[in-house]
């Protein structure tokens, strides 16, 4: 699994992606980790099929006892179906995820890890000396859904927003925004159900100072590509299945 350091100051952001050992027919996912002091948060740790690759990759950078927090943006299997395994490996960790999904997510197995439900309005989480914000992204696409914003690194983890369906060996970063839009279009039109939800999210996110936007699938947005994406998404009609 490819690992790359995205931000390195008093705390660090890593991306783990493009796992060559992943079974072919499961969707490729990007996992992220924030390390601050002796605590770490793994964002959308992924499905059960990539658990062993994730564990091996994480332990290249931090010892197991410093993997203290997990975050799941929503309940999908590619986000958190590995929970039952993490539950055994890091039993003292805490899971931050939408509170609305508690009864559903516990089906993946959560006997040891402390379940910390995020309320609909969002909230904050301190990892080491770093304060992260949970940004509501409800109905995009899941009915209870959060993104994570780091005001110091100016990074927004945007879950399925900004996702693109691409071959396994594609680059981590966008090389040409115009051509990349083609790879994002169907995903956003079909998976995102509501233009109203989209506008709520855009209004909220446009107030943030973002230098990097990190989706859970596809390529990472840097600099002006973030603004280009917000404009593109605003103009895109979503929820197309109802309009056929």
């Amino acid at each position, binding site marked *: 699994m490819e690992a790359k350091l995205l931000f390195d100051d008093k705390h660090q952001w890593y991306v783990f992606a493009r796992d060559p050992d992943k079974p072919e027919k499961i969707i490729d996912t990007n996992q992220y980790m924030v390390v601050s002091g002796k605590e770490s948060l793994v964002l959308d740790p992924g499905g*059960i099929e990539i658990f*062993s*690759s994730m*564990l*091996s990759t*994480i332990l*290249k950078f931090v*010892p197991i006892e410093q993997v203290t927090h997990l975050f799941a943006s929503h309940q999908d299997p590619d986000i958190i179906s590995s929970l039952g395994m993490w539950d*055994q*490996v890091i039993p003292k960790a805490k899971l931050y995820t939408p509170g609305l999904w508690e009864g559903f997510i516990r089906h993946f197995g959560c006997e040891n890890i402390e379940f910390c439900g995020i309320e609909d309005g969002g909230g904050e989480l301190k990892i080491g000396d770093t304060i992260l914000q949970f940004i509501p992204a409800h109905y995009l696409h899941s009915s209870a859904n959060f993104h994570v914003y780091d005001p110091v690194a100016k990074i927004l983890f945007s879950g399925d927003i900004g996702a693109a369906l691409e071959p396994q060996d594609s680059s981590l970063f966008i090389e040409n925004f115009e051509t990349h839009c083609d790879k994002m279009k169907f995903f956003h039109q079909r998976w995102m159900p509501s233009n109203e939800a989209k506008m709520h999210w855009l209004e909220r996110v446009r107030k943030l100072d973002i230098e990097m936007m990190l989706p859970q699938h596809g390529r990472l947005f840097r600099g002006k590509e973030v603004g280009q994406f917000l404009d593109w998404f605003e103009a895109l009609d979503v929820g197309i299945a109802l309009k056929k």
Partner: protein
Amino acid sequence: MAKEYSPVKSAITSSQVAGELYRASGIARQLSLAAKNSQAVVHRAGSKVAGLKVISEYFADLALKTIKLAEEINTISLDISHMAVERWRQNTLVGHLYESQAKTENDTVALIISSTKQRQLDINNQFNTEIRRLENQLSEIQQHMQASRVVAVSFRLESTQSDEYQGILEDMASNIDVFSEQIKQHVLDAKSHIDRLLMS
């Protein structure tokens, strides 16, 4: 019958070993660079330090071998990690199947239990073979690094033959010694992770 180690501990151990070797291979790349630099200085120093030519070539060769071994160990560790997780999933499945049998006896479920247990056994045997292979590879790197430290002492002694380059060559010998020791330490940490699993 091969001993069965906890799949949870096995998955953690193999990932810890991969982590140690990832750090060791980073240092081995620095060692390789130090060896190349020493080759260049020895070349410049000429006939006064002819004895160092062979030693610096040895270091360069050793660094490359270490990098290759570390990469191989990373691959084996990842395979072991996959096996451990697979065994873990099979164990969970068997547990659920037994629970199902306890509620209602069923021949089909009994057959699934039997085939799953066979698969568990196969994976366990394979796991035990691979963990021994991993131990051997780690011992090989450890031996390389012990040899490297011994040769670094000769390198330092030989460097006294060159007045002009003595300082640089001594520094290089120290670097090579430090890198070798750091790699050895990561290998020892990796081995102690495995030992803890095998003792469990």
